[in-house]
C-alpha cells in the first residue's frame, strides 16, 4: 500500500521531468530561444564524453568535494563545541543566544570578501566560508537542544543514581540528539551553498569556477553540464548526511 503510493509519487515526478524535457526540446528545436541562453539537450549531453576525458574536470570535482568535506568538518566541530559550551553554561547562553539568532538573519555572503582577504583566492577561503556558513545552524540547534531537555529527565536521572558524566552521556545527549542532528543537516546544506557560492564569486578552480568561467565565455552547453554535475554532487552529499543521520537515530 505504502509501496504503491511511493510508486505513484515517483511516476508523477518522472512525468514532470519529462514535461520539462519536452518543453526544453520543443523550444530549442523551433529556434525560439537563442542557443546561447538555452542549448539543445543533446548538445549538453555531447559535453559529457569530453568532460570525463578532461583532467580539468576531474580536478575541479576533486577540489569542490574536498572543500565541501573541509567546510563540513569545520562547521560540525566548531558548531557542536560552541553549542555544547553555550547550551550547558547559562551565562554564555545569555550572551550568545541572541547573537546566534541574529547571525541566522544576516546574509553571511557579505563576509566572503573578508574571507578572501584572509585566506586567499584558493580552496582555503572556500573551506573557511562554507564552514562559517554551516556553523550557525549547528551551534544554534545544539544550544536549543541542550537547553530544552525536559528537567524531569535530569531529575529522574538523579533519582536513579546517574553520575554527572552518565547524566551527560546517557540522558542529556540522547535527549538532545534529534534536534542537534537536524541542525547538522541544515548546516551541511549551508556548507554546500557556501562552498559553491564562494567558488562562483571568486576562485581559480572547482566546479563553481568552471560554471562561472563557461558562463563568462558563453560556452553554454558546458555550463549546463557543469551545473548538472554540481547537482549530482549535492545529491550525493545530502544522501550521505541523511544516511548517517538515520543510522544514528536507530541507536
Amino acid at each position, binding site marked *: 500500500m505504502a509501496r504503491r503510493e511511493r510508486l505513484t509519487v515517483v511516476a508523477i515526478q518522472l512525468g514532470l521531468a519529462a514535461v520539462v524535457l519536452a518543453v526544453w526540446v520543443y523550444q530549442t528545436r523551433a529556434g525560439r530561444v537563442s542557443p546561447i541562453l538555452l542549448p539543445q539537450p543533446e548538445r549538453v549531453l555531447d559535453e559529457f564524453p569530453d568532460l570525463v576525458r578532461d583532467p580539468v574536470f576531474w580536478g575541479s570535482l576533486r577540489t569542490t568535494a574536498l572543500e565541501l568535506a573541509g567546510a563540513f568538518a569545520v562547521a560540525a566541530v566548531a558548531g557542536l563545541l560552541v553549542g555544547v559550551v553555550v547550551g550547558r553554561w547559562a551565562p554564555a547562553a545569555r550572551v550568545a543566544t541572541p547573537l546566534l539568532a541574529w547571525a541566522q538573519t544576516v546574509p553571511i555572503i557579505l563576509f566572503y570578501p573578508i574571507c578572501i582577504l584572509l585566506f586567499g583566492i584558493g580552496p582555503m577561503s572556500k573551506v573557511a566560508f562554507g564552514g562559517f556558513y554551516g556553523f550557525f545552524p549547528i551551534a544554534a540547534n545544539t544550544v536549543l537542544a541542550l537547553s530544552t531537555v525536559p528537567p524531569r529527565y535530569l531529575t529522574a536521572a538523579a*533519582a536513579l543514581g546517574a553520575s554527572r558524566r552518565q547524566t551527560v552521556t546517557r540522558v542529556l545527549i*540522547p535527549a538532545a540528539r534529534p534536534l542537534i542532528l537536524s541542525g547538522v543537516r541544515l548546516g551541511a546544506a549551508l556548507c554546500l551553498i557556501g562552498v559553491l557560492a564562494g567558488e562562483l564569486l571568486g576562485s581559480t578552480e572547482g566546479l563553481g569556477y568552471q560554471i562561472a568561467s563557461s558562463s563568462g565565455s558563453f560556452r553554454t552547453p558546458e555550463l549546463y553540464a557543469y551545473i548538472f554535475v554540481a547537482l549530482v554532487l549535492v545529491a550525493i552529499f545530502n544522501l550521505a548526511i541523511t544516511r548517517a543521520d538515520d543510522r544514528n537515530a536507530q541507536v
Partner: protein
Amino acid sequence: MAETTTAPALTATEVTMAYRTRRGHTVVALDRVSLDVRRGEFVSLIGPSGCGKSTLLYILGGLRRQTSGEVALDGQRITGPTPRKVGFVFQDYTLFPWRTIISNVEVGLEFRGVGRKERREHAAYNLDLVGLGAFANAYPGELSGGMQQRVAIARALSMDPEILLMDEPFGALDEQTRTVLGEELARILEKTGKTIVFVTHSLSEAVFLSDRVVVMSARPGRIKEILTVAEPRPRQPAFSTSQSFTDLRNGLFDLLHEEVRAATLAEMSGAGIGGDGGRRG
C-alpha cells in the same frame, strides 16, 4: 504490617517549602510539615490537588531542597538523592523515550555499574512482576499511560531500595486495574518488607494499602490529620467490603471534602468564576 519497628526510617521536621515563581511571587507549598515514617510502614499522603504532596515526596527523596526544616534518613540528614536506599516513582513516570522498556527498567543498575547480563535478568524479573514482560522491546511511546507507570514501578523496584516514594503510581489507571495492581503491590511489598510513602487521590486505595493515611490541607500544605488503619497486613480483598473499611473511608471522605472544597473555591474565585464563595457552608 504488624512488624513495623519503632525506629523511624524517614523523618521530616518542620519542613517548609516556598517556591519562587517566574513572576517573582512566592508560593508556600508546604508549611512546617513534620512526619515520621517507620521502617516497613506504608504511609499514604492524600490531599487536594496542589497542596504539596509531590513537593514533600521530592524533598523526602533529596531531589529538591526545602526552604527550611530538616529531613533525615535513618537519622542522617538528607542533602541529595540516595539511589541505593530510596527509589522513586514519579507522577509523570518520565521514562526515557529513546530507550526500550527493558533498558528503561535496568537503567538504574546500569548507572550503578552492574554488568549487562545481571541487570537484564533483574530488569526482566521486575518487568514480569508488573505484568509487562511481553513489552520488553517496545518503546515507551508505544505504551499507554498506565502501562508506562507500571514500567516506572518496575524501574524503581529494580534498584531494590529500602524505601519507595511513589507519586500517584496508579493515577492513570481505571478503577478495576487499580484495585488489582494495588493488591499486587501489597503482595510484592509484603514479601520485600519495604517502607513506602505513597501519594494517591483514591480514598479506597489509601485505606486498603496503608498503615497510616496522612491527610493534608489545601495550600499552604499542612498535615491536617493522620488516620491509623489497624487492620493487619497483608490485607485480604475481603477487607475492602468490611464495615471498618467503610467507616475509615467515610471518615477520610469528610476530612478531605472540606479541604478540596476550600481549595477548589479558592481557585475558582481566583480565576474569576467563583460564585457564592463558600458562604453556604
